[in-house]
């Protein structure tokens, strides 16, 4: 009984949910993670659920120390998500959330790559409904793009796994290393879900478009599943260090200029993932511990921040920084919890981010990756700037927007409260978290040097923000929405290399219009070819068909008799 996979519990509950009375559904959604945690704790580490399909031995349920960390935090996130969505009466979202959470847990507990692939695809399919559930035309299109990319990732994974099977005859999901085309494909598939640079756009594109509760749930699972997969398969792969460093650095600029606060958080999510990816790339025991710990605390404070912003969106109906401000009078509790989240993500001592991020930084320093260490340090300052200060400041303080609303619903406050409590608890008593790490932890976060360095960093970046803001140099809350990659060509580079940048921009524009026209033309061409009225599709009359058959026969006879 104890070897029942919690993932199956989620899936079964999700499938049965529409059948039970509407009023009890939300209680079930709340109860399932609790039972799941109980199952998880009662199960001794080991492999279960061996199945043989097509002559392959699958291990559908493998619980070891690494998997346990992720499975546990996924359960906690599922519980908080369910509590946050407690007021909701949308069956589609409730079912999708359960299936999505179950799939993510299943993937973490997968002992082989075929099982991993099955859950991998299910996370993609189930999660898109959390975006579509917003039921706007825009959300629909965003969801379609999201689904394409996620399914694409799964397809690449399957191709890689099949090739790996042919190369080595094994589907075991253990350390793979970048050794062949097959493992490269698997690596790319993980990278898409992990939002590697240039593969990251789906994240900022889709998360801000999901429902209030959907974003909270989405932010916890997909990317962290990818980090787990990388930690399992590619620990110690050197290139990950550089990929991760790039991931921590580049989103800062976008986060600073972005107006949609949930999109700011999406960029900062990308930046936080970078820290974990660096940890995986280093691959030492301490680095992997740091990655696991950071994933754990990150899920909590990121969910907390998304919940706070979700509550604002829920009450004020907008999340544009330019239209917000002064909300602390109406939503004191939300403000309070949001600040705790901000302190955690900025890694203030006594908050959860501090005890996990410093572990990764120390692991980097121990391995003497000085450049990477400096990038990470700069990125930490950036985090403080855009997530630590910008989010609460523009939403709740800054200039008073004059908007007055009610405090967030009680269930949302409770959900935020629990997350905030855990953030502080981990920060104050890190040993509890260190006890469940994959490797024995020999690390003390609260040394004088650590604390002083971190405080200096934070204070100076706060100072920088204050100075910039007071002198009006800080990018103001701009009403425009479409600040994207092209901003770099158009604004920043203009002053330095104006002519080149204009040329680039216009070429790019020409290219894009050209491509758009081309696509339009070829689409209509295809429609002419194969659409309902086209010649390929049109019913051929009997004479034509007989002619075709005779021709085919002649071809065959000639092929054989000459």
């Amino acid at each position, binding site marked *: 009984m104890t070897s029942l996979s919690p993932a199956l519990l989620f899936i079964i509950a999700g499938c049965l949910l529409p059948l039970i009375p509407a009023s009890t559904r939300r209680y079930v959604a709340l109860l399932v993670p609790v039972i799941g945690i109980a199952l998880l704790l009662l199960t001794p580490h080991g492999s279960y659920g061996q199945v043989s*399909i*097509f002559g392959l031995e699958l291990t559908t349920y493998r619980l070891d120390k690494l998997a346990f960390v992720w499975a546990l935090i996924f359960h906690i996130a599922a519980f908080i998500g369910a509590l946050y969505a407690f007021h909701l009466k949308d069956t589609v979202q409730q079912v999708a959330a359960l299936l999505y959470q179950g799939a993510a847990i299943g993937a973490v507990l997968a002992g082989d790559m075929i099982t991993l*692939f*099955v859950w991998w*695809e299910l996370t993609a399919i189930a999660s898109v409904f959390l975006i*579509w559930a917003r039921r706007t035309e825009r959300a*629909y299109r965003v969801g379609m793009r999201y689904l394409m990319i996620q*399914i694409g990732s799964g*397809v690449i994974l*399957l*191709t890689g796994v*099949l*090739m790996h099977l*042919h190369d080595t005859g094994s589907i075991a999901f253990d350390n793979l290393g970048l050794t062949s085309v097959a493992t490269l494909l698997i690596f790319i598939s993980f990278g898409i879900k992990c939002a590697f640079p240039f593969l990251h756009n789906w994240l900022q594109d889709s998360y801000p478009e999901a429902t209030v509760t959907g974003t909270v749930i989405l932010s916890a699972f997909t990317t962290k599943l990818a980090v787990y997969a990388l930690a399992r398969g590619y620990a110690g792969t050197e290139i990950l260090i550089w990929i991760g460093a790039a991931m921590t650095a580049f989103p800062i600029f976008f986060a600073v200029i972005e107006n949609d606060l949930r999109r700011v958080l999406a960029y900062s999510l990308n930046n936080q993932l970078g820290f974990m990816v660096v940890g995986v790339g280093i691959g030492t025991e301490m680095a992997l511990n740091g990655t696991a710990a950071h994933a754990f605390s990150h899920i909590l404070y990121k969910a907390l921040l998304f919940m706070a912003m979700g509550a604002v969106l829920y009450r004020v109906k907008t999340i544009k920084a330019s239209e917000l401000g002064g909300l602390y009078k109406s939503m004191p509790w939300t403000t309070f919890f949001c600040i705790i989240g901000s302190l955690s993500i900025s890694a203030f001592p006594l908050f959860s981010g501090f005890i996990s991020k410093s572990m990764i930084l120390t692991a980097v320093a121990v391995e003497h990756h000085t450049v990477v260490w400096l990038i990470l340090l700069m990125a930490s300052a950036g985090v403080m700037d855009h997530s630590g200060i910008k989010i609460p400041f523009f939403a709740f303080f800054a200039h008073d927007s004059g908007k007055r609303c009610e405090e967030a619903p009680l269930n949302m406050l409770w959900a935020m409260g629990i997350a905030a409590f855990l953030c502080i608890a981990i920060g104050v008593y890190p040993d509890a978290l260190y006890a469940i790490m994959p490797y024995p932890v020999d690390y003390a976060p609260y040394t004088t040097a650590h604390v002083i360095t971190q405080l200096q960093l934070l204070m100076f970046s706060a100072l920088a923000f204050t100075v910039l803001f007071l002198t009006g140099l800080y990018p103001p809350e701009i009403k425009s929405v479409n600040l994207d990659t092209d901003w770099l060509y158009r604004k920043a580079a203009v002053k330095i290399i104006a002519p080149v940048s204009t040329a680039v921009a216009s070429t790019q524009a020409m290219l894009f219009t050209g491509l758009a026209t081309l696509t339009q033309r070829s689409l209509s061409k*295809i*429609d002419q070819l*194969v*659409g*309902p009225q*086209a010649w*390929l*599709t049109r*019913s*051929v*009359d*009997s004479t*034509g*068909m*007989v002619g*075709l*058959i005779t021709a*085919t*026969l002649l071809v*065959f*006879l000639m*092929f*054989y*008799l000459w």
Partner: protein
Amino acid sequence: MIYQLPAIVLLLTLLAAPICSMIRNGDIAWKLAVIAAWLSVAASMALMHQVWGGNEISYHMGGWPPPWGIEVRIDELSALVLILVTLFGSLVITVLRESLRTAMRSHRHSLYYTTFLLCMASLIGITITGDAFNVFVFLEISSLSTYALIARGRDRRALTAAFRYLIMGTIGATFILIAIGFMYMVTGTLNMADLAVRLPEHADNRVVQASFAFFIVGIALKIAIFPLHYWLPNAYTYAPKATTAFLAATATKVSLYVMIRFIFDVYGVEFSFKQMHIDALLLPLSVAGIFIASLIAVFQSDVKRLLAWSSVAQLGYMSLGIAMVNVAGLTATVTHMFNHAMIKAGLFLCLAAMIYRLNSSHIKDLAGIGRSMPLTTGAFAVLGAGLVGIPLTAGFVSKWYLINAALENGWVILAVMLIISSLMAVAYIGKIIDVAYFKPAPAQHKDVKEVATSILIPCWIFALLTIYFGIDTRLTAGVAGRVAETLLGVGL
């Protein structure tokens, strides 16, 4: 009794047909047809039980020993096809009464059941006979009854569609007859096992080679292998609703069975592949068929026609499996033959239920049907997932073997193309699912209600079977694997 089973499985439906035609009361005729059909399912299951593990049954009709008398031969492959025909046919005939109620005046019903049973009986006959000429005779019976079935469609265009199918089917059958005639000319025998023994010594004979060409073109026409598929979309589109489900499941699959039987058993692997290079012809045609038909399906606006084009594409997968000439490929063909029959029959049946309420199969009219007919649309979605080949559905199993077969031959590009073609299936099925669940229902369909339970149950049986065979593959891939080894002569 057990010994006579091979004859009984055929006679049940063959004898029930004329009796049905004599009963004027449609209800009684339907009951008789249903009983006969389901008894034949039981008989097929019993036969499968007897041949399980690789046994063969040889039954001599009238006690005349072959090669003079007519022999009935049943191995695992024919037993699997038998189950396919009888089980899916019986499921369709069970809903036929409800479906005919609005479509036809009641005194005609019994004649319709007669035609249906005849069609089923002839397909069973093709599957079990060990005599080449019998194959032709039963093919003709099945064709004639199919024309009648299609022509009963309410749309006037059904008549043209049936007529075109008649012309095509007759030419196909004639080609097959010519092929059999050539073989008889050279060897002097019609028994398939006997032919298999005698043909190799005439392998260089031009007549035998010509017979092979005639046979391949004739049977490819019947299977609707690209580019000989032009009769299929119209025939499926204009046939009466539930009948399409039966035709899509059985007719083309049985023709495919005949093709496998002749290529591998009668002409032999050596002759078909080493000397005649049938794989070199089938491979490009299959790939072209998969892509062109999938692309056309994506752009269709009538769901029935969309599914029909998807059938052409899926048949491409099956012929592709043969063209791979390895065990995994042939396994994929046989597995997909069964799985696709089940999935497509289920999809057409669900669609029939929707048309029953909406009186249209245009994609626009399906808007919002996910809310007004949740159970039917749910089954449709599950079956659609099966067609795409999502893991844990039957469709995944066959595609898995197909991709494996491509990799086994070292054709990585082909494997990638197969994956891309699956994405095209996502596109055309996704189009329907999207409209059904996410678009508001048009005003005239606001008060559409769920169909009767008697139609819903078979729909969901198909849907649940799709999931079941995605998990337990002993009957499908298990049998197919053994069959493939025997046919290719690997396991011997």
